[in-house]
Structures are given as structure tokens and as C-alpha cells.
């Protein structure tokens, strides 16, 4: 399974004349963009040194925001249709304002203010409103939305979700012959591949008829982004498989259960938003999140959970303490790592991870 390189793929797309919008994390109506023939290239953790962004941001801002701003300030030639800032957290929301009003990038800047809170009449009405407003702002630039294209985009999204749900289930039950690094590379390819290309990639994933070899230990991971490739490879070396995730860049973007095929795009997108797994960035009930974590720990037979927390990530840190306390109370081993999205593992983190796996190995040893 060959997954194209992110930068090269997007460059080639831009060179071919494709409209590309840079989208900040995490939840946004990608189907609406697709219906306008705009490709969403998500900006989570662009690599490179943070230099210019530090002039605009406080030191206590998370590295996702800093890296994103650094990327935007360089005005990369692959983004040509503007930037979209969903209201994932206050830092990202403020970054949208800063980029638009203070820094003055040359491309248009859009915002999308997700509702905070669970499913109810007010939040659903609000969500429909912001979807329609976003549609209007796109129509002002790109002309009227074609209803058939909007529906087709939702159908494509539905197909992608169905594949991702099956792959996620296969991962939990050892029916997938991908190591940690390969699995998360596949998950993250949706951030930049055209939906049709991503669907083709998912269709190539081999789901085994029988479970493959069991890993030495099974782990769940929670946080915003998957652990860095270096950590994933290290876990592979140790024989630990991440069998389930609670990641914003992972399963928190996949509906909790299968949906009917879309008929009305607005209804479909609204329903989809509210059946996503609980997430710190959407507010909501912490008990629901705990229940979700426990359910996935049990379903995947994970022996422990790794919280990989992006430094200064307020939404995650807000929930983290109570989650850890409760999970420890239920005798789930918990390890927390703090990441600044560096591309190496410190000796201390290596020891933490290795000691945690020793603890998990002890649990499974006779």
C-alpha cells in the first residue's frame, strides 16, 4: 500500500490547478468544500523550525497553533483558496482572527464555529445555521452550490466513514496486518488526499479473515495527534500494538455507529456531527467520555492507555486529570507523555514508554 508524500502530493495538485483550502484542526464540513470542488488540506503539525510565529504568539500557546501559523506566514504556494479555522479551541479561534485582521495574509480567511455541547434542539439548530452560513460565504465567492454535487460529496464521505469503521474494528481484533506506524500513516492520509484517492487507498486495505498474531501487549492511545512516528516505531520494536485510539486526528472523527446513506446533505451532516465520539474540543459530558474510553478499552482488550498530550493543549488538559484519576481507580494502567511535536524521543520518554510496556507485559505474563 503506497501512500503518497503529503508535500509532493499537494504540490502536484496545486500545479494541476486544483483549488486547495488550508484547514486547521479539526471538525469542519469537508463535504461542503468538496461540493465546491475545493480540496481541504488539513494543517495539523507542519514540520520545521518555529521562528516567525513566536513573534505573534505567547509562549504558552500550543505547538499545533504555532506550527500552523509558521506554515501560514510562509504563504506556501500549495494553498490557493484560503484558510478555514474551525472553533476547536480558543487558541485556534483567536489565530483565525489574528491571521485575518492583524497579520493580513493575502488569501481569504474563513471561520466555522462548531457548537460546544451535546445533541439537543439548540445545538442542532445552531449547527444547521452555521452550515448554511458557511455555504453562503462559499457561494459568495464560488457561485451557487449544486445540490447534486453536495449530495455526491456526502455519499463519498459516508463511504469513507464505512471503510474507516471497518478498519478500526479490524484493528481492535487483530484482523489488520499493519504495524503502528503504518496504521496511523493510513489514518492521517485523509488529512491531505483527495477523497476519491483516499477511498481508493482504504479499499486496498487488507482485512484478514482470521486474527493475525497477537501483540505482546495492547494499548489504547488518547490525545489530539497520534504519537510521533519515532514513538510508534519504538512501540512496534517493543511488540506493543495500539489497538484503539481516542484521538482527535483519529477515531474522534469517525461516527460512533453506522449511518444510513445520505438523502438530505444538511440533515446528514448535522446527524453526523452529533454522533461523533465525545471530544474535549466539543465540550460535553466527561462521564460520556469515560464511558467511551472504557468501552473501547474493553472491546480492544487494551491493557493500558497512553495519553499523549500536546503541551499547553487546554481542552485536553482540562479533562485529563479527572480521566486519569478515574481510569486508575478502575485499575487501568495509565501513562501520560507531553509532546511538543518534536521529531525525536527523549531518553526520559523512552524510559517512560519502556517501563510502561514492562508493566503491561507483567500483566499478560502467566
Amino acid at each position: 500500500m503506497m501512500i503518497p508524500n503529503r508535500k509532493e502530493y499537494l504540490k502536484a495538485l496545486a500545479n494541476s490547478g486544483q483549488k486547495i483550502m488550508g484547514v486547521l484542526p479539526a471538525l469542519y464540513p469537508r463535504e461542503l468544500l468538496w461540493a465546491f470542488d475545493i480540496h481541504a488540506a488539513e494543517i495539523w503539525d507542519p514540520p520545521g523550525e518555529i521562528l516567525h510565529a513566536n513573534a505573534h504568539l505567547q509562549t504558552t500557546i500550543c505547538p499545533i497553533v504555532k506550527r500552523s501559523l509558521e506554515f501560514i506566514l510562509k504563504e506556501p504556494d500549495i494553498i490557493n483558496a484560503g484558510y478555514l479555522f474551525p472553533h476547536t479551541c480558543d487558541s485556534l479561534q483567536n489565530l483565525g482572527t489574528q491571521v485575518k485582521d492583524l497579520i493580513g495574509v493575502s488569501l481569504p480567511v474563513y471561520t466555522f464555529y462548531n457548537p460546544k455541547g451535546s445533541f439537543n434542539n439548540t445545538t442542532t439548530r445552531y449547527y444547521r445555521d452555521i452550515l448554511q452560513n458557511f455555504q453562503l460565504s462559499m457561494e459568495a465567492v464560488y457561485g451557487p452550490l449544486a445540490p447534486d454535487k453536495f449530495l455526491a460529496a456526502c455519499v463519498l464521505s459516508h463511504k469513507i466513514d464505512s471503510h474507516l469503521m471497518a478498519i478500526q474494528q479490524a484493528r481492535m481484533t487483530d484482523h489488520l496486518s499493519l504495524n503502528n506506524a503504518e496504521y496511523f500513516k493510513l489514518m492521517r492520509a485523509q488529512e491531505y488526499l483527495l477523497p476519491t484517492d483516499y477511498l481508493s487507498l482504504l479499499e486496498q486495505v487488507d482485512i484478514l479473515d482470521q486474527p493475525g498474531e497477537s501483540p505482546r501487549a495492547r494499548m489504547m492511545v488518547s490525545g489530539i495527534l497520534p504519537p510521533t512516528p519515532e514513538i510508534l516505531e519504538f512501540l512496534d520494536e517493543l511488540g506493543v500494538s495500539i489497538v484503539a485510539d481516542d484521538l482527535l486526528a483519529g477515531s474522534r472523527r469517525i461516527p460512533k455507529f453506522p449511518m444510513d446513506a445520505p438523502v438530505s446533505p444538511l440533515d446528514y451532516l448535522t446527524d453526523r456531527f452529533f454522533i461523533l465520539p465525545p471530544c474535549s474540543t466539543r465540550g460535553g459530558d466527561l462521564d460520556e467520555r469515560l464511558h467511551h474510553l472504557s468501552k473501547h478499552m474493553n472491546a480492544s482488550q487494551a491493557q493500558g492507555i497512553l495519553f499523549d498530550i500536546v503541551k499547553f493543549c487546554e481542552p485536553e488538559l482540562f479533562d485529563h486529570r479527572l480521566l486519569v484519576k478515574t481510569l486508575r481507580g478502575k485499575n487501568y494502567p495509565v501513562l501520560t507523555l507531553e509532546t511538543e511535536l518534536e521529531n525525536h524521543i527523549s531518553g526520559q520518554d523512552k524510559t517512560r514508554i519502556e517501563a510502561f510496556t514492562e508493566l503491561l507485559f507483567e500483566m499478560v505474563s502467566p
Partner: protein
Amino acid sequence: MADLYFAGVDVGSLSTDVSIIDHSGKLLSETVIPTGVNGSEAAEVAFDSAIKLADLSREVITAITATGYGRASVAFATGKTTEISCHGVGAHQLFPKTGTVIDIGGQDSKVIQIDSHGRMLDFTMNDKCAAGTGRFLEVMANRLELDLDELSSPLNIEGESAPISSTCTVFAESEVISLLAKHTPREHIVHGLQRSIVNRIWSMVASIGIEGEVTLTGGVAHNRGLVVLLEEKLGLTLNIPENPQTVGALGGAHIARRAYQSSLELGPN
């Protein structure tokens, strides 16, 4: 299992320690040498020295566990385990009622909870700063022009100790410089430094909790002043091993012994 010997080699940031035990778990020899710049060389030297002390030869050592931050560099080891597991097992061997281990090493400090067999249940480790570690004391001893022994005395000072940051070694050093400039008595500064480490350790203990007896390991356990303050803060008496630096190596030797026993129980492939 007669005439079987096991070793633990702990390559730490400041010292490299080796323990050798026999088949019954009896300690035969221990060595501690500075690690220097070459961990694998230090491991070789310390291992040879421990073997000589035990009056053995390399060939008779059945299994060797490497541990410590330089564990990957011990080419002659038969297995490697983190110092967190090793300190748990080592503390259990010395004080079987241990439920909590506080290890204050050269560059790391850890609080480890263990079960009644010495197996790790949970742990926490200091963040990316040397505050609350042996290195912190070294830096401060240097700045105060004291040796580590002078920094270790229990102090009965009059009045408050000098307030010193417990979160950052670099800030703490700046604070010490300011205190010296203000002619603060050195014993007040030393007391403040000991308290700073104790506060740091206490916050780690608070995050994980205390179970059973508490054993203090690592070179910093030699610091009597710090031990007194830590006991006062925790409200209990700590188990202090005779050689707190070698507890990780001792645990490593016992892990090697257990692994060998397990391999016998499982039988040949």
C-alpha cells in the same frame, strides 16, 4: 542451580553500578564508578571490577540485565530492563514490605509503586528538568563551592530557610547567586536547596500516592539532611539501603535470575 551467578549493570548518568548475586539471591559483590563520557566502557570496567571482587570470572555469569539510561550500550548484557522496574525489584529484595520506592538518581527522580512481589504497579517520573535530582545538587554544590558531603548535613537553622525554586535548576541557580549576593548564610541556602528537592519529590509522591513502606534509593539517599526533611514532609520513616546507589543494579541481577528461572520452567523450544 548451584554455581550460577547473575549480574545487574546500571549505567546511570552519573555513576555505573554493578551487583552480582548467586543462585540463591545472595549478594556477592557491588561496584560503583563514575560513568564519565563513555557508558559502554564504564559498564565494562565496573563489571570486571565486580567480578574480581566476587572472585569469579566473566564466563560463569549466567545472565546479565542492563539497566539505567545507558542500558542499550551494554553489549555483554543478556537482557535489558528499565531502571524503574529494577529499582522496584531491588527495593523489594532489601525491604520486602516496600510498597513505594522513591528513587532520586543523577538526572531522573521517580516514584514507583510495587506489589508484594516487587512488581511495578504504577510510576511517575520527573519532567524535562534536573530539578529534584542528583544533578541539581551537583550544580548547586559547585555554585556554593561546597562538596556534596557538606551539602548533605542535617541542618538546624534559626529562622526560615532561603526560598528556592523547585521547578527549574537554571532558575534555582540564579536564585542561589542572588542569595549569595545578599549575604544569606550558606546553611540557610543549603537548607533551602534540600527543601526544594523535597518539595519536588513530594509533588510526585502526591500524584501517585503512598502504599506500604517507603524505600529511598539512588545516590541522593546519602544526603542525610534531605532524608530528614523528606521524612518530616511525608510523616514517616524511610527505609534507607546501605548502598542506595546500587539498588537498581541489584534489582537488575534479580530480574536476570528470575528470567533464567522462567526459561527453565518453560523448557527448551
